[in-house]
């Protein structure tokens, strides 16, 4: 019994949150990695792209809700997602046309594009705040839990609860589907291969008859879709606040890099590394140990390696250690 309690406590406070957060980071990192791999710059506007797509989804959700449409037990937002994706695609394509294309033609250095993407980030940020305001928006409906911690306790009679949210399951399932689709697309389809070819050597891609503008467009479409999905999932699970999406950028970049930037598989792995290092290193093991140790040895302190103040710092240290031993990231980067 005690053993079970320990396992459940660990799952409830470490495993499940880690997996969910990891998936959220992973889908975000996929978008960053794709832009990096194919368009060749680190896109600082990605967080705000996510926020923009989510905003459209939220507006559509509200509209659907006002029409009385719902998805049964699932959040209505899933129904609104395609609209959000579409809106995001339109915006991103407009921005590419009006901003990025110029630098592409100029063959500007990537770092210029990085800075330009910061400019785009500011602008998108302004648009979002203007339309939906800086406040928190909650747009999830339907039952929040598949099983709540309280129900779990009564069901199993354990002392520890285990809560599983609907959104957590949706997030993980979506992440798996999205990654599988992306893989298939990049490695098996003509368009996917043309994207990789373009990313490798755009002059030569041109000489092979690949239309670079089409590749760029395709990339943005996929990136916008990924961003909207990531943003919406995150918003459903936590809540939507534009500023938070900007803050997500840092862990997302860290995920992309630790996995080997440019590698989709790496983005996934990176997301989980970052998420778990945040959650586990600063975890206070007291709760688990209380169940496992005989009474006489029960810890009096928290048995915490580091205070949570350092969670972000610690995840960066982990990242550094990974890189020192595996200098190309977990998966060899640059090989979309």
């Amino acid at each position, binding site marked *: 019994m005690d053993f079970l309690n320990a396992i459940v406590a660990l799952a409830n406070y470490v495993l499940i949150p880690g997996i969910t957060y990891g998936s959220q980071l992973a889908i975000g990192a996929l978008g960053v990695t794709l832009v990096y791999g194919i368009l060749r710059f680190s896109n600082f506007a990605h967080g705000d792209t996510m926020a923009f797509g989510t905003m459209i989804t939220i507006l559509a959700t509200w509209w659907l809700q006002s029409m009385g449409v719902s998805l049964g037990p699932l959040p209505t937002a899933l129904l609104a997602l395609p609209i959000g994706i579409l809106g995001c695609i339109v915006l991103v394509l407009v921005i590419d046309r009006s901003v990025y294309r110029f630098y592409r033609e100029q063959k500007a250095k990537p770092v210029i594009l990085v800075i*330009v993407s*910061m400019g785009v980030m500011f*602008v998108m*940020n*302004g648009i979002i705040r203007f339309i939906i305001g800086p406040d928190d928006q909650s747009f999830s409906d339907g039952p929040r839990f598949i099983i709540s911690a309280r129900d779990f306790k009564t069901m199993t009679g354990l002392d520890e609860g285990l809560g599983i949210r609907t959104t957590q399951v949706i997030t993980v399932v979506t992440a798996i589907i999205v990654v599988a689709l992306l893989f298939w697309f990049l490695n098996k389809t003509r368009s996917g291969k043309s994207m990789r070819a373009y990313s490798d050597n755009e002059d030569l891609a041109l000489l092979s008859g690949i239309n670079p503008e089409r590749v760029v467009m395709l990339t943005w479409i996929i990136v916008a879709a990924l961003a909207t999905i990531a943003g919406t999932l995150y918003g459903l699970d936590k809540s939507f606040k534009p500023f938070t999406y900007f803050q997500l950028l840092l862990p997302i970049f860290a995920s992309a890099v630790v996995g080997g930037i440019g590698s989709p598989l790496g983005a996934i792995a990176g997301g989980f590394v970052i998420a778990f290092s945040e959650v586990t290193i600063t975890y206070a093991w007291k709760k688990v140990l209380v169940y496992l140790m005989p009474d006489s040895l029960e810890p009096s302190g928290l048995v915490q390696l580091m205070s949570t103040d350092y969670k972000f710092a610690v995840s960066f240290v982990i990242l550094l250690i990974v890189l020192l031993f595996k200098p190309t990231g977990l998966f060899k980067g640059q090989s979309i």
Partner: protein
Amino acid sequence: MSDTVKNSLLFALVFTLIILSGFFQGWNNAMFILNMGIISAIMALGVNLQWGFAGLFNVGVMGFVALGGLAAVLLGMPATPGAFAAGGAGVVLALLLGIGTLVAASFTYKRMPSGRNRNLAMMAILVFGFFAFRGILDPNVALIEAVNPAATGYLGGLNPGTDETYRDNGWIMLLAWPVGGLFAAGAAWLIGKAALGLRSDYLAIATLGIAEIVIAMMKNEDWLTRGVKNVIGVPRPVPYELDLQNSAAFVERAASLGFDPVEASTLWVKLLYALLFAVVLGIIFWLSQRALNSPWGRMLRAIRDNEVAAEAMGKDITARRLQVFIIGSAICGIAGAMMTTLDGQLTPGTYQPLRFTFLVWVMVIVGGSGSNLGAILGGFLVWFLWVQVEPIGLFVMNILTSGMAEDNWLRLHLIESAAQMRLMTMGVIMILVLRFSPRGLIPEK
């Protein structure tokens, strides 16, 4: 138009902007923009040295700036009476123990044959050392933080004065600036040793991470920095406005020049700062300009262009990079110490990557990476915009909406969000500048 003419015009333009802001918004404001502009320019020079000339992607500027700020506190503030006695020795012991643990671990790593035993021994040393370190550190830290927590609760600094008199030792801040550079250089040395061998993407993420770690420490190690409770009243190397206002001689002189004593005192103080800062900027600019137009600079550019070939041509790229990384970071540290001096306080919570890392990068790129003059221009211009886009935005909104009714909701919404449009305006300006000079305003030749 020759380059010199063009560059002079650009600088003239920026200074005209600053002077205009003086006419419209007051000279204090203009002087403040100038002072922060000089500090920004110094930071931009540091980053430009690393990126523009050696291709090192340092996105941890914030951390080095913050370390400079720490130096300002550790030199400028007086020691907290009783704090060292309370737990100082313990903290020192703990730190020594921590260092000892690391040394022992690396010694084991070098001396023992590799294998399971070595790993076990290392683990044992590290785990034991860590817990001993925490065991000694934590209670002593608690003791220090218990000393008058509302006002101090930290060790304080090296200022020889007491709580009442330390402000008289403002000269010590001039020492704090180079010390800030040293702090940053020390951190850069550590990072460089570990991360400069990595591919540069990873240097980027490493620096990003270290900056976060530095800030986390400054926020949470209250015994050293007072953490988020902030250190206020950092002394300054220039006189206080109030003292000037109370000095008869000064008031008289101001009056003879037709100035109101309050305004005269605030302007005079800022002017003194501006002179001090300008001297620092001048020295750093001169040194980097000389260095970069020499075989040393040529070697750096070669390394940036093609590492493999540069190494085959006998250049020790690791050593060179470490050198540049340290120097560039030190410059950021100096600027950080200067900024804390100007602010008069250390507030770790205000260190945000957006403001202290990415904005500096924008300065370098907009100015033209690889060009020192460009970095300086970028520093002034981007800082000016950062401060001025809000009034500009408000102004634009007012004009845009002037046709609408007083209580038109769109008008209200627009004016309401004017402050939030600050970042948007900034973004638009950045995109426009880079659109018309994609390699920066003063591109590398």
